[in-house]
């Protein structure tokens, strides 16, 4: 089996400053955290759209395991961006925040989307 040293493409959402650069379907209006050409729901044509910086926490959890470069504890959250998609983010400062909490994207940390409450 040949070994490779190529780093696979980063699959995380693209962040520009404090917004996620995703896309929206021109047919069904479904928002997506990624820049898609066609909508996964209806195959309609998608156009680029910027989401955030604001959003609402759906849930969050402190993680007490080392995962990749992240040393425990760190906090992950699912956030519904305003009129946008649900995205997985890192919460700063570390600590769980209740569902319904308003948060704001403040940038990235080694590619992870970071929010503050």
């Amino acid at each position, binding site marked *: 089996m040949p070994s490779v040293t190529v780093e696979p493409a980063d699959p995380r959402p693209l962040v520009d400053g404090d917004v996620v650069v995703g896309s929206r379907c021109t047919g069904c209006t479904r928002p997506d955290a990624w820049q898609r050409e066609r909508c996964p729901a209806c195959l309609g044509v998608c156009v680029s759209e910027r989401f955030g910086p604001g959003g609402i926490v759906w849930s969050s959890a402190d993680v007490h*395991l080392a995962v990749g470069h992240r040393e425990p504890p*760190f906090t992950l959250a699912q956030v519904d961006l305003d009129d946008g998609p649900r995205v997985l983010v*890192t919460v700063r400062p570390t600590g769980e925040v209740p569902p319904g909490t308003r948060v704001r994207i403040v940038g990235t940390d080694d590619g992870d989307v970071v929010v503050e409450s």
Partner: protein
Amino acid sequence: MNPSIVGVGTSAFGRFPTARIESLAHTAIVEALDDAALRPGDIDAAYVGSVFGPAGIANRVLAGVGLAGIPVYRIEAACASGTVALHEAQRAVRTGMHRRVLAVGVEQLSVVFDGPIVPEPTDPEGRSGLALPALYALQANRYLAEHGLDPAVLAHIAVKNKFAGSMNERAHLSGAPPSVEQVLASRPIAGPLTLLQCCPMTDGAAAVIVGDGTEGGVPILASSFVSGPAWESGSDEPWSMRTVSAAASAVWEASGRGPDDVDVAEMHDAFTIGEILTTEALGLAEPGMAGRLAAEGVTALGGRLPINPSGGLLSRGHPLGATGLAQAAELVWQLRSQSGRRQVDGARTALLETMGGGAAGVDGNACVVALLGGDR
């Protein structure tokens, strides 16, 4: 054809890093063949579930027990790989394609990971650090907030299943069951989930032989396989619930039975919150009530509806590709009254459910629900 399970077998479950992965599977397959009083030449096709097994594992496993020259399919559906193998085996028989089909699941996690499963780095959420305990912890915190519940409701699931597992000599963790306080005081892993609320990393194998009903066996009344729909922004339901509900609805419709007909169930409790969400998604408990049913003993051995009498994934362990078939084996033993000290009295109809894995934006990769037995 009306498919039925004519033979089951499993390996022991635990950490066996020095064993050959084939030997784990051979133990399970030989037990299933002996149980069915069949020889390898009686098997028409085989479906092999494995997630992290090496390339070629299906043919390597089967060739070692004389099962060469038949159609062989490898299935990967995350934690539901073995259950999807069973679903496809029964479908092959139900449609008349084959008469006797073997479903096998095998996994040797101890040679793949030093610790927990490493999230898949090419998946957006995996790359963002979403280890599986964290995925379930997010659901747990949402569920507890939604229903105004204390984390102790989660701990009751661990206590219940580890009590049952203490009576399962094949289980990975069969020691004395902990108290609720001990579960809550164990090492924090993610959100409200502590170490004793997480399944162990387990090696093992399980096998089920499906026949066409002309040779007896435990009837498979219905089986449903649903892959996860998109999990969209704005959805209030915790991850996986819609997928489990859809699979269950299909089984109720196909069998003409319902939740009230179930005497015993094995379901996906990789983490305590998993059993709670699944119990409710299957319609076996009202929303917000599954933890209380465990605390009150309703879903414990001796209760009205025992759930995970094998000890579940929390005790038996979770050898991913083998898990669904180990669940099926337990239910077959229950329906035959062969479960010894953990026997559910009068068990006639059994429900099987396995939920498989996560991919970014999808409400679970795969869910299988099956209804077994059914004597009225």
